């Protein structure tokens, strides 16, 4: 059986709409783990507004996008280690994924995607007819 490269890689040329706003878009850090029957992807998107978390699957490319709530605190910035912006990242998904069954959960700034594999072609027994 030809083994397919199951690793999900970022799409080389994700087809996407350009966004017209002035805040930046960040590529979130992810963990991808493969289990027997599924892939599990976790992405850090701290501060993302649950209403804006969007997962799209189109032509083998899985795209996650999330927007950030506008910060409520005002005042002078004294120290800045992170900037606020949107999150976006795309992955090429192999045919072995059952796209219909992809599940997404968002909690505490972490987006968790569960991508079940399609049922593997089971080995078939062929009966030999003896004449």
């Amino acid at each position, binding site marked *: 059986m030809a083994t397919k490269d199951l*690793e*999900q*890689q*970022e799409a*080389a040329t994700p087809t996407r709409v350009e966004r017209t706003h002035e805040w*930046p*878009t*960040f*590529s979130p*850090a*992810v*963990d*991808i*783990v*493969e*289990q*027997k029957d599924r*892939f599990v992807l*976790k992405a*850090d*998107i*701290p*501060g*993302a*507004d*649950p209403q804006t978390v969007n997962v799209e699957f189109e032509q083998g490319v899985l795209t996650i996008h999330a927007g950030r*709530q506008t*910060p409520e*605190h*005002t*005042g*002078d*910035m*004294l*120290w*800045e*280690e*992170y*900037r606020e*912006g949107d999150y976006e990242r795309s992955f090429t998904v192999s045919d072995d994924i059952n796209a219909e069954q992809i599940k997404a959960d968002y909690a*505490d*700034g*972490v987006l968790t995607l569960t991508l079940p594999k399609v049922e593997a072609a089971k080995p078939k027994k062929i009966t030999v007819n003896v004449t």
Partner: protein
Amino acid sequence: MGDLSRLQREMNRLFDGATAGRWSGQFPAVNLHAHDDGLVLTAELPGVDPQSLDMSVKGDTLTLSGARSAATPAEDEVVHRRERVAGSFTRTFQLPCVVDAEKVEARYTHGILTVQLPRTEAEKPRKIAVKTS
């Protein structure tokens, strides 16, 4: 060839992050704002159990510690990517003014910890009336 293009992508991703001002130093990344009544410290702590966070304030020093648990992979699991930071952390900050430890409030929403640090009464700016004779 595949490795090369992957490397290229990684480089692009790193540089994209750098030019966009993404902090790649300590965890968690924090921002500090000042307003008339005090300071606001925010920290990016996605996936951290708020119960595991430990914070102490004394005078003008704030210490934040906690842990983000790394899921230990099961035997039949294959890890393809591990970019998210895991483990325990402690950061200590010297604040630009003395804050009222009694009135410090912290809130954790969508992976962001927001700490309100009011100044002590003595530290607050006072309006001084200019007398004319």
